[in-house]
C-alpha cells in the first residue's frame, strides 16, 4: 500500500502504476514461485517417511503442481503486496524450518 501511495505523490499516472504492479506480480510469480516450490520439494523430500530416493522424486514431481498453484495465487490475489507477502513469508518460514530440521539431524 505504501508503495502505491508514494507512486501517487511522485506524479506517476495510473498506467505506470498498473505496469509496475504487473511487473512485480510477474517477478513474484516466477522467482517467488520457484523458491516456494523448490523449498516445499526439499521439505517433502526430508519429511516424508521411508526411502530417501522415493521422497526426493515425490517432492520433485509435486513441485510443478505447487509452482502452478502459486502462479495462479499471485495473479488472483487482490493486491500485489498481498501476493508478495503470501509467497515470500512462507518461503522464509520453510527456509528457517529446513535449517532447524538439519540442525537436529546433523
Amino acid at each position, binding site marked *: 500500500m505504501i508503495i502505491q501511495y508514494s507512486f501517487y505523490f511522485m506524479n506517476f499516472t495510473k498506467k505506470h502504476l498498473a505496469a509496475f504492479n504487473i511487473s512485480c506480480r510477474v517477478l513474484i510469480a516466477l522467482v517467488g514461485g520457484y523458491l516456494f*516450490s*523448490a523449498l516445499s*520439494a*526439499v521439505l517433502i*523430500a*526430508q519429511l516424508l517417511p521411508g*526411502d*530417501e*530416493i*522415493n*521422497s*526426493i*522424486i*515425490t*517432492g*520433485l*514431481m509435486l*513441485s*510443478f503442481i505447487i*509452482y*502452478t498453484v502459486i*502462479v*495462479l495465487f499471485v*495473479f*488472483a490475489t487482490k493486491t500485489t503486496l498481498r501476493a508478495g507477502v503470501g509467497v515470500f513469508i512462507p518461503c522464509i518460514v520453510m527456509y528457517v524450518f*529446513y535449517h532447524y530440521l538439519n540442525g537436529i539431524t546433523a
Partner: protein
Amino acid sequence: MKSRFRQSMGWLHTWAGFAFAWLLFFIFVTGSLGYFENEIDRWMKPEIAIVDDAIDDFEILNSAKQQLTVLASDAEQWYLAYPSKRNPYIKISWLQPANAELGMPKQWHEEYLAPHTGKITPTRETSGGETLYRLHYNLHYVPAVVGYLITSLATLFMLIGLVTGVIIHKKIFIEFFTFRAGKGLRAWLDVHNVFSVLPLPFHLMITYSGLVLLMGISFSPVIDATYGEGKKMHRQFYNESKTENKQQQTINLNTADLSLKAELSHKPVLSLKTVLTDAKARYKNQTVSYLGIIDRNIADNTEQPSFQVWLDGNEGIEFATLLSYRLVDGQIQLEESLGKTHSAAKIYDILEHLHEGLFADTYLRWLYFISGLLGAAMIATSMIIWVKKRQNHPTKFIILIDKLNAAVVVGLPIAIAAYFWSNRLLPLAMSNRAEWELHSLFIVLAACACFCIVRAADKVWKSMLWIAATVYALLPIGNMLTTEHSLLASVQQGDWLMLGFDLSMLCFAGCFALAAVLLKTGQNETELTMKTNVKKNMKGVIKTC
C-alpha cells in the same frame, strides 16, 4: 469476486500463452514428429536395404559378428538389432572408445547390413529423425542445459495456460459443442476450444510429463539440498533411483544343437551364439529383438563381459524382457530384470513412457501424432485470436505479430520440409552434412520470417500456405528423382515406411492447399479455414457438432 477471479485468470491465460506461444508451437510440432522418429530415419537413409523375408537369427548373428570383429574390435559395447516391423533392417552399433590421436571423443557408431550378403550398406550422413525431435527440448544452438531450462519454463507456461483455460471456461462442455461458423473471432474461439478440450487429457499429460522428465535439471537445487551437491552426487542419485529388482540364478545353458554341447563340455563358455540359443529355448514364443555385449574388453578377471538378449522389444524397449548372462566364478549367472526398486521411480517411468509413446503400435502412434498436432493447432489458433481481438485498432506492432505468427505457424512446417529437402539435395560427400541439414531448417525459418515481414499483411498467410503446399507436394517427386524410391517402386518393393512417408507429405500438401483455397482475403477472412495440418480432423469434429 468470482468474476474478478475469472477475469484475472483470463488475463493470465492470455499473457502466459503470448509469452511463449512461438516456442511452444515449435516444441509441439517437432516433438510430435518424434513419434515417427524411425520412419523419418528410414526416409532420410534411403540406401538402407529392407528385410522383407524371414532370415534365420543365427545367420544374421554370424554376419553381424564378422562385421563387428573387423570394425569394432576395441569397442566396449556391441549391439545387434534384429529386423522388426517398425525397423525392417539389420543394424549393428558399437560404442567406440575415445581416440586421443585422432581427437575423437567416445561415441556410438552404427551401420546397416544388407540381408543375406551381410555386407555393410553405406548410408548417407544425416541428422535423421532423432536430431529433429531432440530439437524440442535441446533447441540445438544453445548448450544443452540452457535448452532444457528454457523449454522447461515454456512448458510451465503451457501448464499454467491449460489450467487457467479450464478455469475461465465455465461451461466447458456446452462451449465444446458450439461452433459459430462465419462469425470471425467467435469462430476462432470455438475452434480453439475444440482443439483444447478434445485432447485436454493428452495436453495435460504431455505437458506435466515433459516437466517431470527434466525435473532433475530444472529443480536441481532440490537434489543439492536433499541428496548432495555437485555433479558426482547427482549422478549417484540418478543411478540409485534407477536401481532395479533383479532375479538372479545360476544356470546351465540350454544347448539345442549337439555341436555346441561338445564345445561346452569342458567349461562353460559364453558367446553371443550360446546365449541366443539359450534365450530362444527359454522363451520359445518370443522373438529376439536385440543382442548385445557390455564390458567386452575388461582385462582383469573380476568383471566378466555381460551378454544381453532383449526379447519382444518391437513394441518399445521398455516392455522387452531383458536377459543378461555373465560368468561368475566359473558359473553362468542369468539375471532378469523385475522392474524398478523405488515406487516413485516407477511412477516416473510411467510418465516417461506415456510421454515418449514408444509402446504405441501404428494406430496409437498416429493418435499420439495427431494429438500433438492438435496441441500445436491449439497454440496456433490462440495466436490468431490474440491478433483478431486487437484488429479493430491495428498498430504496427500488432500487424508485425500477425506476420510473424504466419512465419512461425506456416514457416516452421516449411522449414521442416527444407530439412527433408536438404537431405536429398546436399552433396553426399559434403563435410558436416548432418549439421548442415539442421542449419537449412533454421535458415529457411529465418527466410520465412523475412518474407512475411516484407509481404503485404492481407496476403501473407495465403502466400505462406501456398509455399508450404508446394514444397510438401514436391517432396515425393524430389525423392523419386534423387533416389530410386518412387511411389510405385515403394509399392512394388513393399517398402511401407518409405511409401507412408511420401503419402503423408502429399497429405500435408493437400491440407495446406485446402487451407489456402478456403482462406478468404480481406477483413472477413478465414472463418472456416485452419492453418495447420490437422484440418481434416477438425472437419470431422465440426460435422458431429
